[in-house]
């Protein structure tokens, strides 16, 4: 099979391939295509009905957590990933990164066929030729006896594949591979191993009453964020008895913003605090080292003592002394007796087993630099990007005799290789994963490969079978057969296991053992309190990770949960420090450390110490596809090559100088004002007030608020609400719809509750909505507008700078307190996250202004937007107090326009149930009306009524906090009907009489657990 370079797989070819191979998944006709063709199957696969979704259980491979996902497959193509409700790890939830795997699958810049280097260029070749070259080169290496010096760098994964690779390597007399996971919190893992004997003990938030987080960003990128968030939200939903969180670190991360108290300790001073807590030092020493009030430390010590075994201390630091500090944090748990209560080593998470240390990678780099490595294999790891530049990986890698890449994307490392044997995406692959010790979950293909790619396992097997000397060790034809052969119970049991979320058991093949690496360079020096310059905190991005997510426009477009910046790198600096330096937001700052320097615009953030700047990883790719290339800067350039005592990279390891440049760029932010101006959008109440009589707190902080009773029944007291008092059979107000109409649609009132006590601001709902509703991403550099007849705005995020992001649901992040930040540093501010989407008002201001009825109120309570009727006056948006209507400024859905948001084959992920909106049309949240209709159709086909909580919206489905509940408020059997009457319920802008169908439940605040008596 040969395909020309750059030519995509044509739809017809795709159909043919599938039909011919008769795979379990296949494709039917273009039910949703514009072409006037009606293509049937050649032979129709079992249980497939055109236009009806099937769900394949598989396991997410985007991070080490190993969540179970369901791939929704329509006509042979996955169109959405959802959490698998049966999977013990994620219990149905899913994060933004996981959902965005689809954009990795359908990425237009993926390797489309094998490639071979000819001179300086990679040229497409056939698989036969590629395998021939591979065999030949392997033969050469082995014949020269260089096999022992081969290097195989694999992106970290659990399951059988690592063992399989090591088997293959050992058959070729090569050393075991290195499993690279730059996102793994290696210091924590090392400390956990030392303290608890496992890499990652289970964390029980619910059992705790006081959580100390030493930069343990369990809601951002530290550990398994979906299971952690689920547990955290459940724990916080206990309201009055919820655990309180104290966050200790120089930068307030998303986890920090969810904390009840922030102790802004200087980087490197955490040990002193631990010592004070453990009684090994005094509070005064700790306070001095950490540069915080002594009273705070004293109160903290008292709080920890008071909490006893309900203390949960977590350490997620990445300083040179992180392992030591982690051990001391574990000591706090031990001393308090909370091991086994809040920290459960018995229920370990297995995701980080087998991760190679940074030191091993440095060692391999040094061997390469010395010219000792004859052949190197790379699979989806990208050390040319994700290692401190000072290590010099790229230059070292260039000296490798022959470099083979199995990566799916043309990233910085792959493009240095000589032979590209593109692997299948995990959604096209067979595989397995072990997330919880002893629980195995499977990866199965949800579609035939999009491009001319092959599973790396299959390729390794063919290479081995081509080599007569070792062919006998690989009797199976491909990796799937190899897996089945190694599966207890064989093919039948295997087929059954595929439909299950997890099965007990472990992969048969185990990893090879790697030789320990001796440290040849001294570790990074500890951060000293007395040094020069500002602390430079580098942290993995909550959306892009360490950069692997940067090629996915959904993740690029998703604003960082803390800073709300997208498509950019920024330098966080405290407003006070900025004022002293004369820096305004957006002014370029050069941050220079001993290792290197970067320049990025300043973001004034009150959640960072004034002597610290913070920079996220993830951007600054020089390759890796159109969405990643030349966006932002790479913070790895700042990192010194030193490591901590466990041999892992310390991200917070240096001080640097920060200088202001004359240049200025606008921040690509979705943030308007971060203050509510007393408008009662994000409301909160103190935990103690929940059981207090209701009168005591009632809207007094909203000036101009019309004093009236909260009417969760969504019935307007003033205007004639369209649906009348549907909930009250005695009422004569039957609303404006014909109750006699046979369809009885007006009996329903679709509604939603959002519990702000649960919401963490993680933004998974945003990406879920993009995925479900075909929302275009608009921030890519090619999507900008014309600045003059001849020039285009090619800044990444140009449209977002213009406020044109399309997120139907957005996460607003409002601050309370700390209004004098530019003159004073204070850690005591509160953050409230509000998911804001169309409120589906009973009396919607947007509706009567539309001249063509493109928006109106449907009998079942939806504020409907009819795209094909819309002429685009944008009047509705002007009149929407919530500002949740989004406009198609360009032809984002038109392939012939440069702003097209789904370059081929990305359009394969489009949901056929949702219209792709044309230019000049208004769009907004529909409450996933396509899911409502699907549910109604299903119920109707089965000749029954809808069951309570039968389906939900995409945002609610994904939400790892379970903050969003959707349903029929008019039917008491649905959960939402009960929640809407909660004690904490309120409508946003109730005083405008919009009578929204979205009911928010107030956030619950707790007093600072370690409030200083003097403060």
């Amino acid at each position: 099979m040969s395909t020309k370079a750059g030519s995509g797989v044509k739809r017809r070819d795709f159909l043919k391939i599938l039909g011919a191979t008769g795979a379990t998944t296949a494709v039917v006709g273009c039910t949703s295509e514009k072409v006037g063709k009606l293509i049937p199957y050649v032979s129709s696969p079992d249980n497939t009905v055109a236009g009806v979704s099937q769900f394949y259980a598989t396991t997410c491979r985007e991070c080490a957590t190993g969540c179970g996902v369901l791939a929704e497959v329509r006509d042979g193509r996955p169109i959405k990933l959802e959490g698998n409700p049966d999977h013990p790890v994620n219990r149905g939830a899913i994060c933004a990164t996981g959902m965005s795997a689809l954009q990795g699958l359908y990425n237009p810049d993926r390797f489309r066929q094998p490639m071979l280097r000819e001179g300086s260029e990679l040229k497409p070749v056939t698989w036969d030729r590629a395998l021939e070259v591979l065999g030949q080169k392997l033969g050469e290496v082995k014949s020269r006896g260089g096999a022992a010096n081969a290097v195989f760098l694999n992106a970290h994964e659990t399951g059988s594949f690592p063992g399989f690779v090591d088997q293959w390597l050992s058959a070729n007399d090569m050393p075991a591979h290195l499993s690279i996971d730059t996102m793994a919190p290696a210091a924590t893992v090392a400390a956990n191993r030392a303290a608890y004997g496992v890499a990652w003990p289970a964390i029980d938030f619910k059992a705790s009453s006081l959580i100390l987080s030493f930069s343990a960003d369990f809601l951002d990128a530290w550990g398994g964020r979906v299971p952690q968030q689920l547990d955290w939200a459940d724990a916080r939903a206990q309201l009055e008895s919820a655990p309180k969180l104290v966050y200790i670190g120089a930068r307030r991360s998303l986890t920090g913003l969810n904390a009840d108290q922030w102790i802004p300790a200087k980087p490197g001073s955490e040990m002193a605090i631990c010592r004070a807590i453990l009684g090994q030092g005094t509070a005064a020493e700790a306070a001095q080292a950490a540069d915080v009030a002594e009273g705070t430390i004293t109160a903290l010590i008292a709080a920890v003592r008071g909490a006893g075994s309900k203390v949960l201390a977590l350490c997620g630091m990445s300083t040179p002394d992180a392992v030591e500090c982690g051990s001391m944090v574990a000591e706090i748990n031990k001393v308090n007796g909370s091991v086994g209560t809040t920290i459960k080593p018995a229920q370990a998470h297995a995701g980080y087993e087998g991760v190679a240390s940074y030191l091993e990678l440095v060692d391999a780099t040094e061997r390469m630099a010395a010219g000792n490595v004859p052949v190197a294999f790379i699979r989806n790891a990208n050390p040319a990007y994700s290692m401190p530049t000072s290590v010099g990986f790229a230059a070292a890698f260039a000296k490798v005799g022959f470099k083979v890449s199995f990566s799916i994307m043309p990233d910085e490392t792959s493009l240095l290789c000589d032979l590209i044997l593109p692997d299948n995406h995990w959604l096209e692959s067979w595989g397995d994963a072990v997330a919880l010790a002893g629980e195995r979950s499977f990866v199965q293909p949800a579609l035939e490969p999009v491009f001319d790619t092959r599973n790396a396992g299959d390729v390794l097997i063919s290479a081995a079978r081509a080599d007569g000397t070792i062919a006998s060790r690989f009797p199976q034809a491909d990796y799937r057969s190899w897996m089945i052969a190694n599966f207890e119970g064989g093919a039948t049991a295997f087929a059954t296991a595929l439909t299950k979320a997890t099965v007990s058991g472990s992969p048969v093949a185990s990893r090879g053992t790697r030789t320990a690496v001796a440290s040849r360079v001294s570790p990074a020096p500890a951060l000293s309190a007395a040094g020069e310059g500002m602390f430079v905190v580098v942290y993995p991005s909550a959306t892009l990770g360490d950069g692997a997510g940067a090629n996915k426009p959904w993740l690029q477009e998703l604003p960082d949960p803390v800073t709300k910046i997208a498509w950019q790198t920024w330098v966080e600096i405290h407003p006070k420090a900025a004022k002293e330096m004369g820096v305004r937001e957006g002014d370029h700052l050069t941050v220079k450390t001993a290792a290197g320097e970067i320049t990025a615009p300043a973001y004034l953030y009150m959640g960072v110490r004034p002597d610290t700047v913070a920079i996220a990883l993830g951007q600054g790719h020089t390759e890796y596809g159109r969405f990643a290339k030349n966006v932002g800067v790479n913070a790895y350039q700042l990192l010194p090559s030193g490591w901590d005592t466990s041999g892992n990279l310390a991200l917070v390891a240096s001080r640097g100088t920060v200088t202001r440049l004359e240049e200025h760029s606008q921040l690509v932010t979705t943030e308007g004002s971060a203050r509510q101006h007393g408008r009662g959008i994000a409301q909160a109440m103190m935990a103690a007030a929940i059981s207090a009589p209701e009168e005591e707190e009632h809207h007094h902080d909203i000036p101009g608020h019309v004093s009236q009773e909260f009417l969760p029944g969504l019935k307007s007291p003033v205007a004639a609400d369209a649906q009348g008092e549907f909930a009250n059979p005695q009422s004569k107000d039957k609303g404006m719809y014909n109750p006699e109409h046979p369809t009885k649609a007006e009996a329903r009132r679709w509604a939603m509750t959002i519990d702000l006590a649960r919401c963490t601001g993680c933004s998974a709902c945003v990406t879920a909505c993009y995925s479900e509703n075909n929302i275009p991403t608009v921030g890519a550099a090619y999507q900008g507008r014309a600045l003059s007849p001849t020039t285009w705005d090619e800044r990444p995020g140009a449209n977002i700078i213009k406020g044109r992001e399309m997120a139907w649901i957005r996460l607003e992040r409002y601050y309370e307190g700390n209004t004098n930040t530019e003159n004073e540093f204070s850690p005591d501010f509160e953050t409230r996250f509000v998911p804001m989407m169309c409120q589906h008002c009973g009396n919607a201001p947007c509706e009567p202004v539309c001249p063509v009825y493109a928006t109106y109120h449907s009998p079942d309570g939806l504020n409907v937007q009819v795209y094909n009727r819309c002429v685009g006056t944008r009047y509705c948006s002007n009149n929407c107090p919530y500002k949740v209507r989004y406009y198609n400024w360009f032809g984002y859905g038109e392939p012939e326009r440069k702003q097209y948001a789904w370059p081929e084959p990305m359009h394969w992920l489009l949901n056929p149930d949702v219209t792709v909106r044309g230019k000049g049309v208004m769009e907004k949240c529909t409450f996933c009306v396509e899911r409502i209709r699907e549910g109604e159709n299903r119920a109707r086909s089965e000749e029954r009524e809808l069951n309570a909580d039968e389906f939900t919206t995409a945002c609610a489905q994904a939400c790892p906090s379970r903050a969003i509940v959707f349903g029929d408020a008019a039917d008491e059997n649905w959960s939402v009907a009960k929640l809407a009457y909660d004690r904490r319920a309120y409508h946003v802008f109730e005083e405008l009489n919009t009578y929204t169908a979205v009911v928010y439940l107030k956030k619950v605040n707790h007093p600072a657990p370690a409030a200083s008596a003097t403060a």
Partner: protein
Amino acid sequence: MTTKKKWTVIPGFLALAAAATLLSAYSGASSSQGKLVEQPIKFIHNPHVEKLGMNCLYCHSGANKAMDPGNASVASCMGCHTVVKANGSEEIKKLDEYWNKKEPIPWNRVHKVPDYVQFPHMRHVNAGVTCQSCHGEIQKQGAAGVGEGYKPVEQFASLNMGWCINCHVQGYNAAEGAKLAGLPDSVVTALAKEPVKKARYDCAVCHY
């Protein structure tokens, strides 16, 4: 003073033009009703349906289960046509070719609603709307054979929004649908007594 009232002609013409515009707009002049499309194989419904009594769902199996009715896979055609060769018909030979090449038959679409219309076939079929109500007397298509006088499937209805809405609001006349479907008179008369079936005419039923 004036000799002839020629000027009266001008508003007359204007009125005529206006009337023509309105009429064409109202009658759905933009629709492709009556469209005939050549197909890669001259399929004939008539012998399959009337002669063999095959149910529509045999080939369009999704019609009562899914939004999309689906179309027979080449394999299911071959289920009969490996045996049934109809005296070496050219058209069946074409089918053989597709099967041998393992290629789907690229049928041309006849009935097509725009992308922004979500049309659930199963809701209609399950509600008792006969296929013929929208697709015409499809059982008679191809009665003349594939030779001279062959007529491919024709777009029966205008598929205009007004056409859809009319049925949703006024209700579906089951007797008329049954008559088109060629059901026995007894059924038709029985159905005539039933009340018409109305449906929702909310925009968001079809447009989302």
